[in-house]
């Protein structure tokens, strides 16, 4: 049978090369995890400042994700379903935050949301500020991580057979109703996966946040500050905590994504 195949020399080379990359990621992570003793870990993590920063970071990333869900999912649907002039341009703009340095993104955002910025100034006159506060963190996270959600949602929508929507329409469903009763139930897994990824990406954001809101401190800023002030030993316990959390998040994302793939395969096989 095909299944029990002897590995070719090429396979061995590829495995070796891939393993190198894997170790490149794994060894620093493990080193951080084992750098601090359990006692140091508990002490570093039990710190009130750490827990506050952690909670605030999670919340800000969550708020950014909710905003992106409300504004990004409709856009993702349009990108997946409709052809329009300048669609590539729109797609490019959405993906732009992925490729620009995040400090550059922070500077650009400051031009708009800073106290003398395009939007910042009129809002500042009524006492609403977007820098050095929670709102600034949300804006920074939203800007840099929204491509993850929009792109994942777009791909998911594209996977939903558009004829299902057509059939729903012929059965009397309005476009809204077809979206709610057919498209969304079939696409939600992908959208949720995209949202989790965006959330995780938001948590890890540093560059844009440091420019827009140095305070209150997000977890990534906290790590940076401890490192600059007290060296690796001080930064290690918080880093380790973050790594564990990140791992849990990734496992959750897989758990959401994998059933979807399996189902697609069955659908395709049982189709004819």
């Amino acid at each position, binding site marked *: 049978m095909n299944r029990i195949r002897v590995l070719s020399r090429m396979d061995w080379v590829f495995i070796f090369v891939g393993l190198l990359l894997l170790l490149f990621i794994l060894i620093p992570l493990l080193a951080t995890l084992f750098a601090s003793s359990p006692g140091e870990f508990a002490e570093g993590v039990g710190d009130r400042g750490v827990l506050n920063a952690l909670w605030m970071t999670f919340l800000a990333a969550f708020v950014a994700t909710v905003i992106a869900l409300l504004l990004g999912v409709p856009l993702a649907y349009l990108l997946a379903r409709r052809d329009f002039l300048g669609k590539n341009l729109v797609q490019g703009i959405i993906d732009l935050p992925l490729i620009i340095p995040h400090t550059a993104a922070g500077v650009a955002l400051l031009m708009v949301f800073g106290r003398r910025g395009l939007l910042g100034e009129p809002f500042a006159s009524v006492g609403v500020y977007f820098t050095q506060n929670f709102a600034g963190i949300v804006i920074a996270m939203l800007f840099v991580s929204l491509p993850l959600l929009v792109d994942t949602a777009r791909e998911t929508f594209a996977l939903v057979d558009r004829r299902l929507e057509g*059939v729903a329409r012929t*059965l009397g469903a309005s476009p809204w109703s077809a979206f709610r009763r057919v498209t969304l139930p079939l696409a939600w897994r992908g959208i949720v996966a995209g949202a989790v990824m965006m959330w995780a990406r938001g948590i890890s954001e540093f560059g844009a946040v440091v420019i827009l809101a140095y305070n209150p401190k997000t977890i990534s800023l906290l790590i940076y500050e401890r490192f600059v002030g007290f060296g690796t030993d001080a930064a290690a316990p918080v880093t380790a905590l973050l790594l564990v959390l990140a791992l849990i998040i990734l496992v959750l994302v897989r758990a959401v994504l994998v059933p979807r793939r399996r189902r697609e395969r069955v659908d395709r096989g049982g189709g004819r």
Partner: protein
Amino acid sequence: MIRLEGLRVQAGGFSLKIERLSLAAGEYVMLLGPTASGKTVLLETVAGLRRPQSGRIWFGEREVTGEAPEKRGAGLVYQDYALFPHLTVAENIGFGLRGRRGRRRTGGTGATGGTAGDGDGGDRGDRVRALAGMLGIDGLLSRYPEGLSGGEQQRVALARALAVEPEVLLLDEPLSALDGPTRLELQGELRRVHQETGATILHVTHDLDEALALGDRMAVLIDGELRQVGEPQVVSRRPVDVEVARLVGLTNIFVVAGARDETADRRRLTLENGLELVAEGKERVPALEAFVAIRAEEIEIEPASGRPGEASPESAGSGSAERDNALDGVVRSVKVQSVHASLDVEVTAPGGVDLQAPRFTVHVIRPQVERLGLAAGSAVRLRIPPVAVHVCSAATDAPDCSRMQVDGRS
């Protein structure tokens, strides 16, 4: 009644042109066309999922050209069923029944299930069960589409479309994806559903047998244009042009070199390959690029020296042999299929000049092959009844083919 007028639909690089097509209430119309001839585009346009560039669509007295699909009431069934994978069979069938209490309904053409009774009074569950019962899928109501067979899925798709009592039921190659026995079974089911519900049906297919089995009428669509509309039997025997002829399975197609009228309904044709055939029928012979097309199963075959009692009187009077379109030839190959056998017969050209010996495909039912002792190398005599010699043109772009077919002499 469904009526299409001057319809132009642009879909990608493809354009569909329908000058006129109408379906009477309760009529079962087959739309026959090769792959990529625009059949699906036409259905989606009628359903309202595509907007035509120009033209009008009428459902009864109501013009629906600009109407959204959810307002139209056209039920659509795709070849691969397009069931909602996240809903159970019952939820699929009941999908269109939700919140449609106040929906406008027009009498007569609505497809109320016979066994469903008055779906109006009963609640949604009753209606779903009644439809499932009519289609024999009542045991599957709580299942998901994923695990169902093709035939079962197709029944669910059919029940789902029928549930909303559509003004017209649009079927896009509903049987093509099914295996042989299931296809025949579903064919019977479609006929029964049509009888029981009185639904108006437009059914797309590329299978002539399906069209013959189900259709009250048949419309032939090639390259985005309607070439011919008529009774399936008539279209299959009297295609207007060579492309339609090929589509409806006419294998013996020859170029006509000259024609001479003998009587109003009878003419003598000289073919390019040198053969002379007598044709009977009302079709006029096109001045340019005329063809004859002969159905393989309408050609009679017998062994050349098989039965002297029959063969001799004809060979005596050559005139009568010509009137019968009798041709002598040799069987080159015999291809036996499930029901019939297909024979490749090389005919001796008249005058003995054997430059391009014409070949005919002849279909006989299988037992006949043994009974007549036909095999490769057998000398045979073919007889082509003059009514089976059908004259058609190269390709029509005549907008109104249905008229051409009725009074071919216009």
